C-alpha cells in the first residue's frame, strides 16, 4: 500500500490539474480579499468626510473569508460556490482518465486492488484539502496586509456577524488563530471528502461533465432544498446542511450546528468509501 500511495500522492501533487485548481482557488481567495478591502474602505471612509473605522471588526481575523465581515458580496460567494467545484479538479478526474487509458487495468494486475483504490481516495482527499487550505491561508495573508491583527471584540458582533450561538464563536473571540486553524481544517476536510465522492462517482460514470458538473448541480439542488423546502417546516429546529453554507463561518439563513456539519462530512466520506468498496469487490473482467 505504501508504494502505491506514494506514487498516487506524487501524481496528485505533481500534476498539471493540481496546479490549475490551486491557481483558481488562490485567484478566488485574492478576489475575496480585494472585495473586503474595497467594501471596508467605502463603509469606513464615506465621501462626505466622516469616518468611523470600526477598529476591532476590522481585524484580519474578522475580514478573513472564514468569517467574511465586510465582504459578503460576489467574490465572497464566488469563493464558497467556486471552491467546491475547483477542489475536486485537483485529482478526482483520475478515476475516469485512468479507466479510459487502460492504466487502471495495468496497475491492479500488479498490486492489490484495495491498495490502488484506497490510495487514490487518499490522494484525491489530500490534494483537494491542500487546495482549499492554501486558498484560505492566502486570503488570510492578503487581508493581513491591509487589516491589523486586532483581537476581535464580541461587542462588535453586529459588524463581524459572529454571535455567541455560532459555531466556534468562543474560539474566535478568545483565540482567533486557533479559530482560523480549526475552520481551515474543517473546510479542507469537507472539500476533501467531496473530492472523494466525485472520484468514486468516476468509477461508475465515464463522462467527466456528468461526474463533475452533474454532481455539482445536485449539490446546488441540496442547498435549494435546505433553504426553501426545509424552511417551510417552520415548527422544527432549522439548521444548515448544505456544504456550500457549512463551509462558511456563519450564514444569514439558519444556524450552523457543529454536530450536523460533522455528520455531513461523515456522510460524504461514507458515500465515497461505500462506492469504492463496491468497486473493489466488483469483477474487473
Amino acid at each position: 500500500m505504501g508504494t502505491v500511495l506514494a506514487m498516487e500522492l506524487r501524481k496528485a501533487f505533481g500534476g498539471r490539474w493540481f496546479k490549475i485548481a490551486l491557481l483558481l482557488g488562490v485567484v478566488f481567495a485574492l478576489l475575496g480579499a480585494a472585495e473586503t478591502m474595497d467594501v471596508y474602505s467605502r463603509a469606513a471612509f464615506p465621501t462626505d468626510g466622516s469616518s468611523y473605522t470600526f477598529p476591532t471588526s476590522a481585524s484580519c481575523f474578522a475580514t478573513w473569508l472564514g468569517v467574511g465581515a465586510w465582504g459578503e458580496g460576489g467574490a465572497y460567494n464566488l469563493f464558497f460556490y467556486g471552491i467546491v467545484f475547483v477542489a475536486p479538479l485537483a485529482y478526482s478526474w483520475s478515476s475516469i482518465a485512468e479507466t479510459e487509458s487502460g492504466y487502471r487495468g495495468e496497475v491492479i494486475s500488479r498490486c492489490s486492488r484495495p491498495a490502488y483504490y484506497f490510495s487514490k481516495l487518499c490522494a484525491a482527499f489530500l490534494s483537494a484539502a491542500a487546495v482549499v487550505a492554501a486558498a484560505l491561508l492566502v486570503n488570510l495573508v492578503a487581508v493581513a496586509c491591509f487589516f491589523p491583527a486586532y483581537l476581535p471584540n464580541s461587542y462588535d458582533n453586529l459588524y463581524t456577524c459572529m454571535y455567541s450561538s455560532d459555531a466556534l464563536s468562543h474560539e474566535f473571540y478568545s483565540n482567533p488563530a486557533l479559530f482560523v486553524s480549526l475552520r481551515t481544517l474543517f473546510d479542507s476536510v469537507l472539500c476533501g471528502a467531496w473530492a472523494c465522492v466525485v472520484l468514486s462517482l468516476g468509477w461508475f460514470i465515464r463522462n467527466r461533465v456528468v461526474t463533475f458538473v452533474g454532481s455539482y448541480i445536485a449539490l446546488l439542488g441540496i442547498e435549494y432544498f435546505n433553504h426553501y423546502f426545509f424552511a417551510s417546516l417552520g415548527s422544527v429546529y432549522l439548521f444548515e446542511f448544505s456544504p456550500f453554507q457549512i463551509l462558511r463561518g456563519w450564514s444569514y439563513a439558519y444556524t450552523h450546528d457543529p454536530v450536523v456539519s460533522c455528520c455531513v462530512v461523515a456522510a460524504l466520506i461514507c458515500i465515497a468509501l461505500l462506492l469504492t468498496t463496491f468497486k473493489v469487490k466488483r469483477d474487473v473482467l
Partner: protein
Amino acid sequence: MIASMIGCLRVDLRAGGKQLVAAIVLGVGLALLETGGMWLKAASTDVDWTAFSLGDNVLALLCGMIPPQPGERNDVTFPVGWLLLWAACLYAPLSYPSRDMHGFGRNVALECGNRGAWFLSKCLWVIVAALFFLGGLLVAEVGLTAFASGNLGFTAEEIHPVLELPRRDDLQGAPYDIGPFVATCALACVALSVLTMVSSLFVRPLISFSVALVLLILPALAITGWLPGEYLMAVRSEVLRTAGLSVVQSLLYSTALLLVSMLGGLALFDRADLLGRSTSND
C-alpha cells in the same frame, strides 16, 4: 457550406438526442422544484401563492439579486435557485459538443472537408438545446400557473413580498410587465450557452464550466453591464430598477456576445490542431 451544415446538424440532433432530452427534463424539473419551493416559502410567510400569475412565478425564478451596499447586511441572500437554474442550463452545451471532438465527431470534422460547417452545426445544436431547456421551463411554469391561479399573463403584481429585495429608491414598485425581459433573458441564455460551448472546444469542459460559474456569480458583486449574468437577472433590468438594463441594451449585448462567440470560435476552430489534442487529463 449550408448543405454540409444541415447534414452535420442532422447528425448532431441524432447523436446528441439524449442531451436534448436531458435539457428538457432539467428545465421542467427545475421549474417544478423551484416554483414548488417558492410557493412553500410564500405560504410560510402568509402570502397567497394561489393568486400568483405566470409573470409572478417566472419573476421569482429569474429575479437574481442586487449587490449589497455597506451596512445592508441582513437583506443579502445569494440567489442559489437562480444559480442552480443557469448552471443546469449549461449541462447540455458542455456535455455533447466537446465529447464529439473525439472519435467519430472528429473524423467527421476532418473528412467532410468543411470545419466551418461542423462548428456552426454545433452552435446551432447548442441554441436548440438552450431553447429546449427554456421551453421546458416555460411549459412547466404555464402548467403550474394554470393549476394554481389560471392567470397566464406576464404581469407580476403579487410576488414582491417573496422576492426579499432591499428597500431602495432605485427599485420600482409592482406591477411589473416582464414579457420583454423574458425575451431578452432567453437571448442572453442562448449567448452564454454558445460562449460556454465554444470555450469548451478549446479548453477542457471543466475549465469552461469554472469560467461560466465566475461569469454567473460575479454579477452579485457589482452592477457593470458587462457580465452575462447581469442580463439573466430580472432585478438588474429596467423592469425592476429605474436605472436598470434596457431591452435595447440587452438585445445588443446578447447579440454581440453570440456573434463574437460564433465568429471568433469559427476563426480559431478553422486553424485548430484537432489531431494533436490529447484526450487524457494528466
